[in-house]
């Protein structure tokens, strides 16, 4: 049972409470559900962070990119014009988190700090080059997300550091480069799903050729991680003006297989490791193809997981 609860009005107040042992709560979609399921119950002290203005807005886009407050919910993010156009992979992910109720209550910051290897927003954020802005008692620091997560449910943030926002740098666009992204996950049903396997891709295409690529995989390793080998395989791939050049398709297949090779899947009640590894190829292929199509003028509606079903 929670004996102490404080609804913080400033970041400093929240951080002080956290330094004194309180756990932060915003939407509560992970914290409350876990407390009901498990034996531990709710933590003894909670600090509500839903009233902090620093956490509640999306700023930009501008020359520094886009800054999303940690307390912004998934529904807001998935319908934000800048997210839909410049960070489409994040919109793909936010649109399929849990149910509508989860998306309205659950926040991006909660999703990130929960550090689940199955979190949907993680892979696209990593591909977008996101930085976590952590506010501690003494300093504010920025850390790349794939360095933030250290193990399932664990991050390198200390207990008195509050995630204030996620910073997304502007997508590369110099020299005629068109950058686009996508996130695809395997889903057994259309709502209320948790990622069994997922992959995000960001590609920068110029003159019908992939010049930059980022691939990250979800629920396929202890933490969400990038796959540099896949990214290398894509770099230089000739996808053509419409993104459908067969030469590029071969490179995309190679990249997808390398992503599966990099996976360290587990067997559990949701799927066997063998199936997860096979599905890593499928979702990576679909994520890259979708990102390439989006970079070459194709329209692939959000969320890509629904759009690419059976493709």
């Amino acid at each position, binding site marked *: 049972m929670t004996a102490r609860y404080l609804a913080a009005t400033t970041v400093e107040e929240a951080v002080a409470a956290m330094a004194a042992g309180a756990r932060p709560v915003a939407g509560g979609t992970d914290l409350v559900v876990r407390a009901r399921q498990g034996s531990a119950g709710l933590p003894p002290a909670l600090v509500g962070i839903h009233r902090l203005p620093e956490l509640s807005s999306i700023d930009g886009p501008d020359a520094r990119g886009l800054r999303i407050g940690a307390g912004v919910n998934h529904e807001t993010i998935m319908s934000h014009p800048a997210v839909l156009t410049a960070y489409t992979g994040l919109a793909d992910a936010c649109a399929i988190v849990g149910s509508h109720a989860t998306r309205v209550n659950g926040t991006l910051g909660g999703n990130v700090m929960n550090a689940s290897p199955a979190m949907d927003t993680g892979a696209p954020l990593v591909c977008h080059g996101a930085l976590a802005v952590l506010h501690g008692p003494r300093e504010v620091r920025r850390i790349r997300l794939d360095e933030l997560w250290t193990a399932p449910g664990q991050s390198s943030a200390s207990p008195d550091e509050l995630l204030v926002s996620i910073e997304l740098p502007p997508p590369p666009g110099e020299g005629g480069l068109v950058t686009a992204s996508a996130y695809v996950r395997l889903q057994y049903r*259309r709502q209320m799903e948790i990622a069994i396997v997922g992959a995000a891709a960001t590609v920068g295409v110029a003159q019908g050729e992939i010049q930059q690529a980022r691939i990250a995989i979800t629920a396929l390793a202890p933490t969400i991680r990038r796959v540099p080998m896949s990214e290398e395989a894509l770099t230089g791939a000739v996808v053509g003006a419409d993104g459908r050049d067969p030469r590029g398709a071969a490179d995309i297949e190679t990249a997808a297989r390398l992503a599966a090779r990099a996976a360290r899947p587990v067997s559990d009640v949701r799927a066997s*490791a063998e199936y997860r590894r096979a599905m890593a190829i499928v979702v990576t292929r679909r994520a890259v193809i979708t990102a390439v199509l989006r970079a070459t003028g194709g329209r692939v509606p959000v969320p890509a997981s629904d759009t690419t079903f059976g493709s």
Partner: protein
Amino acid sequence: MSRHAAPTVPPGPFIRPDGREKVTGLGRYAADLTATGQLHAAFRYADHPHARILEIDTAVARAMPGVHAVLTHADVPDVRYGGLAQDRRLFAKEKVRWEGDVVAAVAARTPEQARQAAAAIEVRYEVLEPRSDYVANLLPGTPLVHEDWASYEADANLGRHGNVLGRSTVVKGDADSAMATADVVIRGRYVAEACQGAPIEPRAILAEWAGDGVTIWSSTQVPFAARSGVARALELPESRVRVVVPLLGGGFGSKCDFHFEAHVAALARATRRPVKLVFSRREEFIAPDHRREGMLIELETGATRDGRLVARRARLVLDGGAYCGEGGFFAQMAAMHACGPYVIENVSVEALLVYSTNQPSSSIRAPTAPQTCWALEQHLDEVAAALALDPAELRRRTLIENGSVGPTGQVYEAIGAKQTLDAALEMIGYGKELPDDEAIGIACGWWPSFASPSGAYVKLNGDGTATIVTGALESGTGAVMALPLLAAEVLGMRPEDFSVRAQDTETGPWDLGSTGSQTTFNNGRAVIAAATEVRGQLLDLAADQLEVDRADLELVDGVVRVVGAPGTQVTIAELAGIGKVLIGKGSGRPPESPPVDASACVGRLGMESFLAPQLITHAAHVKVDRDTGVVRVLRFAAAHDSGRIINRIGADGQVYGGVLMGIGQALSEATWFDPTGRQRNPGLLDYKLQTASDAPPIDVRWIEIDTPGAGPKGSKGVGEPPSVPTPGAVGNAIARVIGRHVALLPMTPERVWEAAQADGRPPDGRPPDGHGQADGDATTGQAVR
């Protein structure tokens, strides 16, 4: 027959009056009730799925803050209970036989204190090897789940022996000889996992004593069975036990039978306080001795080139789990479904219901039928393929019709099996061109109607409204959707004029409850009889008042009037207001089971005779993602012969819900046991129900014919059949896309993907690692002569 018997315009479908309070959250369910001074209950469950109890020490728990009582087997009468076999006690005594066996119960001031005290009870065990593999439990020499089975009270027809709780056969002709003469023989081996009723409302119970009687508010589907269970387990006269059901938040069978009412009543008696038990979602999965049975289904069919089914042999093994519950009849019911609604010349089916140390099986919506039908209908598609016949054509040639003789010698009269086939094919657009990753699958099934005694009172209120007092239970059963319509028609009133007092053992006559699709079928008869008495009283009063012959009167639109002289009338409200007591009672005579010739069958428990059988054809249009094995049902058609439909809105609702439940069983719903019999997914994150977003458009058509033995106005049951052929239709559609049948249920993405990968290879049918099933080498195949 009086030409004045019916009102001019029969009342039409109407929307349920309790809908608003349910959807707005104003409705009160058992968990919403609070009694002054109430304590909270928590259970201590078995710490091992199979173990001998050596010692239970409750001293520490009793001394904990807030604790008022800790009960074990030593604190209640030493009584066994159960359906056809009485094999369970309230609290485990010598042994625990599954992870949900209740060892002790605590009542404390707060739920947290109760749970902490339950955890603090010290139980010493001698751990025994789990017996989760129910098929292996048939092997000679396997240690027994119930060592003392022979000493239990039980129905002699069960055919119990050791770990076999029930054995039934259906035998017709000489299947062995006929099989040898068949042009084509097809064999199949299918394995279905266990699954759950998964109601939205986890169960809750509140018990309060007054003097030497106890009132129990419980989320049960069967208040009278719950009352009997409490009386038996606590050795009380039934008259001292009252069971009241507030609004029920679904059950789907899982809240049939007596479960936890006596535990809570015993705690309330011990503490002299009201005690309340509210299950967590996890407990709702693990603790009830009530889930759908896992099954091994082996089928063999011999057919002639022209599509006659000359022989069926089958062997079915059902996981009964640790206790009988009310599922003792499962072997025979499964055996009937291994025959299905087809003309088969020779039959030899054996079904075995086997004890294991898994959660006990009991009735979930149409028990045993969806799995067996899923196997049989896929098997029949293989027969059709071997005969180079379209699956629909094979069914058209073999489905039962008027005059057909069934596997137990029953002669079917006036049934609409073939009409349901034609209707489903038409609705789904069978035969149309589809993309190569889409296909249509069909399946046919059947389900009996169940006769039961039932009773009702109808009383007319002074303001011209009326109240139906019934023992029936409302969970979509027709108690609120059909009974007022039936009474309104008799009395020339509007259904909206009736309120329904139901689900209270102290108020209504005895009723079987929300089980066996029986409420409208039986209670409707009682309500018509009761309303007819009131009608007679109204006619007498009106005849007096209008000074006319009673025979010249009719009841129409809320008035009693002279036929042909509508000016001469008196309103029912006026008659109700003159101070006479207008009250009727009724029960009617239940229809009798049709005769059978089943002398060659053993394990006869009454299922050999299908009263007013309901016939069903489902057609599923699916799309398969070949790369992932994910299946989506794009469109669904359901054609049902459930006799005459009383309220189309309510009946359609049953089909929508039943089909979605069936799609869940087809594609995603399973209780996965680990090798020791513990549930691996006791929660809604990993027990994958279909969501509203997954629901396809469902077209419904009712084939309304008058079958002998039907219920009121020619109605049959409605509630259970809608999930019977659904998994089979989905399975056949999947097989048409990927080229082979998935012989494991549910047909999860991983299993469909595996089957699709295995294209051209002989099937190995291994279950995926992720689902860790010990028994799963299901296969299908054929031998064509």
